[in-house]
């Protein structure tokens, strides 16, 4: 049967990595096939609902879904349930209205990841000064947890002053420009956080190209080659990497297990690893990097 993997957007390396994971899960068997789809941006929620409805209409065997919105996707998931299609949620939570309509939830806890970065930030810069937050799309599900918990943690555990957040709309060039401007406007900046892949890359480039970046502690999020290089060169002090590959792989496995009649866990943590220059070559980091 067909397993439909529906992510928040296909226009992103992070989600394409989920695709690679899903592909890997299906290797060595022929019972299942999968389709991979997603809207053109993480904010196009209505389009994601359309994709779920379309999958239900064509009678797929199972759905792996990364919901863009905790509430908006509930009716669609319920519709799948009513049509006897098992659903596994990955990455972001659904509201409790959907309890019982899906089989399992696999995720990195975005909030915990944000707090992890915040904790390391305080460790390295101390408890006073200015920290800039370079975010991506305002109000996106993962952004609320990741950036929200980062700033909350700083507010609770330090006197660090937040600059921003700035939103790059996941455009690397915009992140580059915004970071450059923030750096020149705030010569007393002590730390900076880039909250997803294109934003972190743009931020890293701005730091590398800037003349007054001395001593700024920088953390990024996600872990493609560019970000790995930025960590190696010491531009970034660390990157928080989620197991996106794992999310795809384990999500599809969970569906297959369920369809084969095995019991599956209600919650599976796919984890987050803080990759730093010290541990970048260790297996724990290499497992999640892509």
């Amino acid at each position, binding site marked *: 049967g067909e397993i439909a993997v529906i992510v928040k957007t296909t226009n992103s390396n992070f989600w394409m990595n989920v695709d690679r994971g899903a592909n890997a899960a299906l290797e060595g068997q022929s019972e299942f096939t999968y389709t991979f789809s997603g809207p053109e941006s993480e904010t196009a929620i209505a389009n994601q609902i*359309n994709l779920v409805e379309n999958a239900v209409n064509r009678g797929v065997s199972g759905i792996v879904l990364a919901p863009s919105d905790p509430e*908006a996707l509930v009716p669609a998931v319920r519709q799948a349930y009513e049509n006897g299609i098992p659903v596994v949620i990955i990455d972001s939570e659904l509201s409790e209205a959907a309890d019982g309509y899906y089989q399992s939830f696999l995720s990195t806890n975005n909030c915990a990841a944000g707090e992890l970065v915040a904790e390391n930030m305080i460790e390295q810069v101390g408890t006073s000064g200015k920290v800039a937050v370079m975010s991506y799309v305002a*109000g996106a599900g993962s952004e609320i947890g990741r950036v929200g918990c980062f700033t909350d943690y700083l507010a609770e555990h330090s006197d660090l002053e937040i600059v921003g957040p700035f939103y790059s709309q996941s455009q690397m060039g915009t992140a580059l420009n915004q970071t450059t401007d923030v750096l020149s406007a705030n010569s007393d900046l002590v730390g900076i956080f880039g909250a997803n892949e294109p934003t972190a890359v743009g931020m890293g480039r701005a730091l590398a190209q800037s003349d007054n970046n001395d001593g700024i502690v920088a953390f990024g999020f996600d872990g493609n080659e560019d970000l790995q290089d930025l960590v190696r060169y010491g531009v970034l002090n660390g990157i928080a990497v989620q197991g996106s590959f794992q999310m795809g792989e384990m999500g599809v496995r969970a569906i297959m297990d369920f369809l084969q009649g095995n019991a599956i866990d209600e919650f599976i943590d796919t984890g987050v690893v803080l990759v730093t220059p010290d541990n970048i070559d260790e297996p724990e980091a290499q497992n999640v990097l892509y």
Partner: protein
Amino acid sequence: MVEFFAQLRARGASFRLSKGAFHRISAILTVLILIVIFSVASPAFSSTNNAMTILLQTSVIGMLGIGLTLVIITGGIDLSVGSVLALAGTVTGLVIKAGVPVLPAMFIGVAVGALCGLINGFVVTKMRITPFVATLGMMMMARGVALELTGAAPVSRLGESFSILGQGRLFRIVGEGPHGLPSVVFPGIPYPAILLLLVALSVAYLLRRRATGRHIYATGSNEEAARLAGVKVDRTKIIAYTLSGALAGLAGIVLMSRLGTAQPNEGVMYELDAIAAAVIGGASLMGGVGTIGGTIIGAFIIGILRNGLNMAGVSSFIQQIIIGFVVIVAVYIDQMRNRR
């Protein structure tokens, strides 16, 4: 003598009909071809269930497209509909949160959309700014306000009644299946599709049978001539933009009701789909030409394409390429037709 005039009128009428019919037939043909191709590619495509899904999925773009058709006929354009949709939806959500009942809150949402349109109309007519720029400005401002009002967070938990408009269905028949589980006999006609039909009929009536509609065409055809003939050109344009804004507001409420939450980030780039629908339906961006029927067909061409490509499991990158291509080809066929 009488006979001659009868003949004359008949000739005129038949000419009109034949041209209109020609247009319709060719566009409907495109729709049919798409349906046949997709039915072959995926058997589930041609199910009643999916037909209703397409109706539902197309209704938002259809409403935006109708508003845009009015503006396009006057020779203008409205880039702000996507943002206005989001603003109207979020204001509705916030107002409900503040304790206003759902129905009045929805009217407030439509009013917010109409207000944005009214401002567009004023900027275009009184400040004499090209519609492209005026509505580009509104596009940025409306989005900014929607994000600022909500702090970019979705407005959730709006209650069951908020979802009825977007998620309810007429004539839904649920029978009893085996094991006592429910089984859907007829999925029902989605409310948004019914709303779309009502909107289409009223706007078509406005355009064809009312002086305002005639003035909308005249303004787009030759603004100076219309002004000299005593048409209140500014007023006519303001009406068109205001209606476009109000319909964007309505579409926003329908969409947010479907989502069950009010999303300040929704509707990005919807204006392009809506414009494409109007243009595929035969509206001319030079003004003076366009029909509601055409726009509806245009919206369905896009809607069916999106749905069918998804059903057929085409990669979303390839989908973009195909849709871009079909938009051009559909308009090309329309041009061919007009050139006879």
